[in-house]
């Protein structure tokens, strides 16, 4: 008989307890309180009786019960012939080679390749080797299956050849995702069905502190997997890098300054640097201690220049000393306002619209009275009937508009929607408030916060009740507290029409004087796609959104002059080098700047403890690990056998039966003793 948890057998020593109690029980039990012992002197106890064990049967039962419980807990099983361990396979090895921009430093890549080739050369015929590279993405150069498919003689040469074709790129370093991807390459068994001796990821990298470790937290590593770090060092040079920040987010700012983030590596020995646009333009000296990152204002770019190349000087390493800049274009947004009163009439709609769209340095909203080139249209209910058809055609072409029903007799309404009977009625009662609001819709989503979601202070003195025909496929975004719709989205051909059943003129509501009005109109513009913010600064590897949503192909040009034609709407993905990218579509032209991530300049070595803290099994591979795996497997087989037999159940059942017998017997003995005592 074998035991799965033999250390529980130590519990059998507990039988000493009953034996002891049976020896000393009588002496310990009899204690008689008495008022005073001042007249009494102790007499020596007669101990002959105590050496005898009382109630031998009871003692045997108790000991048997304890023994059975201890044996049960030790999980006994009857040993049969266990299968012999067959873990004689080779090693599974994944070479994970860093190809991020920081590996472009002088001599680093050659060192990394030499390390990788050393591992390839050491691989035995039973081993499986995979080669992967990583920067921002992970690429498989040689897979485990591919390695196994090659003949033993050709393996090293083929892998070396593929490795020679690789060179570092311009991307950032996503080390966390790379490690998890490499770990997923491991297969449970070798192709010949045996367990691998060990599973090793060899990480060949400069281990810079700027590497991202996302995705490592909580990753489940295989028990026998290990990560061996082969760090390739540079020449201990000082390095600083820069990155121009994206100015396109600042659409309402008043300044046109260009901000640049400069990073000085932790192991740098230099602190003074110079920023200049090259070509003898303006320059500025900056001071930045090692290990810090700070944002500076770049020197002024020459007037009338749309693009520039900002250079950093003063450090030893060149690859990250250039950052490209593209001046954002001024965004013209023509909005057609149709059927409205004069702009100086406070009782009309236009008077309030004009005050929303204040001038901004990079955005110019123009309120026009024509649909030509208009990005969005705001239409009053007083639109003349003859213009309605033109608006409907314009909408059908894929545009969006807001129709404000400030008049129950809106003739244009039926025409716009293609309805024969609009069935509009004027509301009755004092006023209405907004009731249900769909905060999931993009128009109201920015208000989906308890701080901003209170629309109950806006009184709508008048609104129009509209029975929405089911054929319209309308989407009610908000309704009034009398359950009539307040804001409805209706598809018109390819376009979409928003219908507001009340106006913001003072006669209809307090909406214009509410703080919700400007952001609400702004979200409507963004929803229509007419004011989507355009970014001009990107990092290597970032996709650049297509500037055209419809139309013919879009022509892209990389900094090296390579031309690529893409369909409208398809993002440009080949941002694999820093520089100015150009795009041409529908006789329009735009430039984008792509730069190296500033973190790539932080080339000081990363503390390896950081990886260990995130659960990465770092350490040299030993035969002991494989032996541990074999022991674990054997243990698993023993557990299965024990689970199948379940002898512990019988043991515990027997212990319970004996305990029951013991209770009955001890109860009977106690009663008998009490009876004898009463008689005497």
């Amino acid at each position, binding site marked *: 008989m074998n035991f799965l948890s033999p250390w529980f057998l130590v519990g059998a020593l507990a039988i000493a307890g009953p034996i002891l109690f049976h020896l000393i029980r009588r002496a310990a039990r*009899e204690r*008689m309180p008495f008022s005073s*012992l001042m007249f009494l002197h*102790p*007499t*020596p106890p007669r101990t002959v009786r105590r050496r005898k064990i009382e109630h031998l049967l009871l003692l045997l039962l108790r000991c048997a019960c304890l023994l059975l419980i201890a044996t049960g807990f030790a999980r006994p099983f009857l040993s049969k012939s266990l299968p012999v361990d067959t873990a004689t396979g080779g090693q599974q090895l994944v070479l994970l080679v860093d190809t991020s921009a920081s590996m472009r430093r002088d001599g680093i890549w050659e060192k990394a390749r030499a390390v990788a080739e050393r591992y390839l050369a050491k691989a035995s015929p039973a081993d499986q080797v995979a080669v992967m590279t990583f920067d921002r993405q992970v690429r498989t150069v040689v897979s485990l299956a591919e390695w196994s498919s090659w003949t033993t003689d050709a393996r090293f040469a083929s892998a070396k050849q593929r490795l020679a074709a690789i060179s570092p790129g311009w991307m950032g370093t996503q080390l966390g995702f790379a490690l998890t991807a490499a770990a997923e390459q491991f297969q449970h068994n070798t192709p010949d069905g045996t367990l691998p001796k060990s599973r090793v990821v060899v990480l060949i990298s400069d281990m810079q502190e700027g590497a991202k470790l996302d995705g490592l937290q909580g990753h489940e590593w295989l028990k026998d997997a290990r990560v061996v770090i082969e760090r390739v060092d540079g020449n201990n040079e000082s390095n600083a890098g820069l990155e121009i920040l994206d100015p396109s987010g600042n659409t309402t700012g008043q300044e046109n300054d260009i901000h640049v983030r400069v990073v000085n590596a932790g192991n740098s020995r230099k602190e003074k640097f110079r920023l200049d646009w090259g070509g003898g333009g303006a320059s500025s000296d900056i001071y930045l201690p090692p290990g810090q990152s700070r944002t500076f204002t770049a020197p002024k770019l020459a007037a009338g220049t749309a693009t520039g190349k900002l250079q950093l000087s003063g450090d030893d390493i060149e690859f990250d000393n250039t950052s490209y800049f593209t001046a954002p274009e001024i965004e013209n947004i023509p909005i057609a306002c149709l059927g409205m009163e004069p702009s100086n009439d406070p009782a009309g709609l236009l008077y309030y619209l004009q005050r929303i769209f204040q001038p901004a340095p990079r955005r110019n909203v123009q309120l026009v009275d024509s649909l030509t080139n208009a990005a969005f249209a705001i239409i009053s209910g007083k639109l003349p009937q003859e213009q309605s058809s033109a608006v409907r055609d314009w909408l059908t072409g894929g545009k969006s508009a807001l129709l404000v029903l400030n008049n129950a007799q809106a003739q244009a309404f039926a025409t716009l929607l293609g309805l024969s009977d609009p069935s509009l009625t004027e509301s009755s009662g004092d006023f209405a408030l907004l009731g249900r609001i769909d905060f999931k819709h993009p128009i109201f989503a920015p208000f989906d916060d308890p701080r901003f979601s209170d629309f109950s202070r806006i009184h709508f003195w008048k609104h129009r009740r509209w029975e929405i025909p089911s054929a319209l496929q309308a989407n009610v975004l908000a309704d009034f507290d009398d359950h009539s719709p307040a804001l409805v989205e209706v598809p018109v051909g390819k376009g979409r029409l928003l219908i507001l059943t009340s106006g913001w003129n003072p006669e209809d509501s307090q909406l214009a004087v509410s703080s919700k009005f400007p952001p609400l109109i702004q979200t409507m513009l963004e929803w229509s796609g007419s004011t989507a913010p355009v970014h001009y600064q990107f990092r290597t590897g970032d996709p650049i959104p297509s500037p055209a949503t419809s139309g013919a192909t879009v022509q892209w040009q990389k900094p090296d002059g390579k031309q690529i034609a893409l369909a409208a709407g398809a993002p440009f993905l080949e941002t694999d080098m820093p520089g100015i990218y150009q795009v041409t579509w529908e006789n329009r032209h735009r430039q984008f700047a792509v730069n190296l991530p500033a973190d790539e300049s932080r080339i000081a070595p990363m503390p390896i403890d950081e990886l260990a803290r995130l659960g990465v099994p770092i350490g040299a591979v030993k035969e002991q690990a494989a032996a541990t795996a074999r022991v674990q497997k054997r243990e698993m087989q023993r557990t299965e056998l024990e689970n199948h037999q379940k002898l512990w159940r019988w043991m515990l059942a027997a212990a319970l039966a004996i305990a029951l017998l013991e209770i009955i017997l001890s109860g009977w003995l106690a009663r008998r003793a009490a009876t004898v005592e009463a008689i005497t």
Partner: protein
Amino acid sequence: MPAPLQANSLRPRPQTGFVDPKVLMAIRNLELRARLVVEGFWSGLHRSPYHGFSVEFTEYRSYSPGEDTRYLDWRLFARSDRYYVKKFEDETNLRCHLLVDQSHSMTYQSVGYTKSDYARTLAATLAWFLNGQGDAVGLFTFDERVRDYLPPRHRHGHLRQLMLALERGPDGKHTNLAEPLRRVSELARKRGLIVFISDFLAPIEQLEHHFALLAAAGHEVAVFQVLDPNEIAFEFERPMLFQDIESRRDVFLDPVTVRAEYQRKLKQHSEQVQGICRNLGFAFHRLVTNQPLELALLDFLRSRSRRGKIIRRRARS
């Protein structure tokens, strides 16, 4: 003179219409117990062979001109046409201190109630009895020190306070017999009656000195030693560990071996206390807790009556 310590003293005396102590102790209210004993005592007194005793001796004296007319007995004057002065009320106004042992050794019991229950009932009975006669009754309860003190008073509600103080059970650890006697000799300046109720299971080296102080102050002292029947007979059979209730000390004893020696020492101790009392002219009563309380009251009154005669004889001589 109390009966010597004999085995037959442990057996209840023949019942002569008195209340069985077990039945009496089953009543939880101490005041009710006391009332029951006193009233039963009065009703049983008609059949009592003992006549002529009284705590108070009434006396009429002829009125002399110039005396305060407040003490004239006008009823007697109406009957006899003579002026008599009632002197007894003033003379017999008694101040009594009850000293009750509340130490932990008083919690011992083998008859269903403790010595402390018995002693407190005795004290309550005496208090009720004396209060009914118009005497002022005070109380000391003590263990290793004085716990409660109520000065002797005869006023409405005082008896109730006294009962409440007696109802608090024993909580002391040790017994110090000298301390309450020292305190009572300090506090009781006027002559009066002092009733000392204890098991006297404590060293008695200082006892005679303090008793002598009380005697010198002119106090009349009645001493009650309350013992459990098993404390006298020590009727244990098997060897076992005996634990001192007060000190929690364990001693292994074979009762058969030590019984005779124990009884001899207890008797010697008791006789020492008794001798001290006899020398000082104090009344000593040994009470075993299975005896009716009325007998204790009877013994008490008899001893007082005897003492009154002795005093009067001494006064005449």
